[in-house]
């Protein structure tokens, strides 16, 4: 397994697969850890207002990999004076996960995976346009029978 951390963007995005190795047909999970700078936030996956840009994680691979529904953490409520209802946001460090299944025809060796996070961030003093950050990593496909 390899992991890569994207430090070039506004936030820190780290992603990896658990377990470390999987056989063809095996199930695992992609875990994306998102470290949001202190004092800042990104909008929830299901924001509270229609004008807010949702946070979305996309997991893709050019190889034999099926990705299940992405699971987002529960958002926090942030009450702001200008909005009648609390806004739903992510702040601090969050984990976004997605179940994966290796294709039965996958060959042994590293299978490249990309996790791309699209988000719109605000700090206490400014908001920024939506942007995307992505990390590339690999899940190691081992030879052998499918694990249960």
């Amino acid at each position, binding site marked *: 397994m390899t992991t890569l951390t994207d*430090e*070039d963007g*506004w*936030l*820190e995005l780290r992603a990896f697969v658990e377990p470390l190795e999987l056989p063809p047909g095996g199930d695992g999970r992609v875990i994306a850890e998102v*470290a949001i*700078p*202190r*004092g*800042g936030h990104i*909008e929830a996956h299901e924001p509270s*207002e*229609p*004008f*807010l*840009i949702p946070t979305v994680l996309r997991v893709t691979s050019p190889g034999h990999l099926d990705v299940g529904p992405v699971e987002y953490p529960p958002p926090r409520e942030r009450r702001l*004076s*200008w*909005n009648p209802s609390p*806004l739903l946001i992510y702040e601090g460090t969050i984990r976004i996960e997605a179940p994966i299944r290796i294709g039965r025809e996958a060959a042994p060796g590293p299978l490249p995976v990309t996790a791309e996070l699209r988000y*719109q961030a*605000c*700090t*206490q*003093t*400014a*908001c*920024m*346009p*939506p942007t995307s950050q992505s990390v590339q990593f690999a899940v190691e496909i081992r030879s052998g029978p499918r694990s249960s």
Partner: protein
Amino acid sequence: MGSQRVEKARSGGSSRDQAGAEPLDCNTGGHVGIPPPGRVTVIGDGLAVVDMTFDRGPFQFADFETNLTVNGDVLQLTGAELIQWDFRDGAGAVPAIWESRWRRVNQRRSQSYAGSTCPVGWQACAIYSGTWKSHSEKEPLPMDTTASHTIAGPYDVGDVVEDFALPTLDGGEGRLTDYDGKVVLLVFTATWCPYCGAEAPFLEQEIWQRFKDRDFQLVVVDIKESAELMRPFRERYGWTCPVWSDEQGHLALRFAPQKEGLPPEVAVINAHFILDGARRVLYRDYLNMERFDARAAPVVAELERVLGP
């Protein structure tokens, strides 16, 4: 050394400015005069040790061991964080204009800075201007939109706005002088801006619908987005006023305040300009998140003053 000389790179700086003891304040437009005592020693190819003390705290670069305090409440780099000061031009034995790039070696993001210094061994005498583009992941962003940290854009109250033309969302062309003789409210917006979305229904309901039958024109300018992206936004909020598209962000350059760390097309978002019939600026404001009012009450109050209640 000779007499101290503290100069500003440009106007609009910190209210804490004081000759000879001006604190470093990277968020007010990035200018600073460095008070004595200070010392710069070039120690190698493109590398220097800077050691100086502000009245508000230490400012030291020594063997790349950095303990830099900038106004305490604005930005702090403390401990053994490493900074490489990469001189690109000058900073030798004579006063020189230089431009440097600071990069914490454990980060890939860079900070840029430019200015002029006195000779090696100088005690004071500096002009700095720069941009803090970077920040530690664990530190607040060095961006601030509060009034005290905002430098006026090109158009201030009393200035006459030059004519401009932009494509409309409906395929036509909107020209500012088409509304000469009317009071014009220019609102700069973007679909991604949460504050713009919060304000959007009130722009239509409480400003345009209320004042449109007087000598008034509301024009919304969408900044650096495609018309295709803006059209659903307009439909969602039922805007019936003209919406013009500054897709390249060129117009934003003429109206945007200078805010550290923010490009013009971001800094201008949610700005309001009220112009009289001769395109003279009567009122302007920029987004202030702490005092944000989705109903744009200060704008409405100014329109009431100009157009009547």
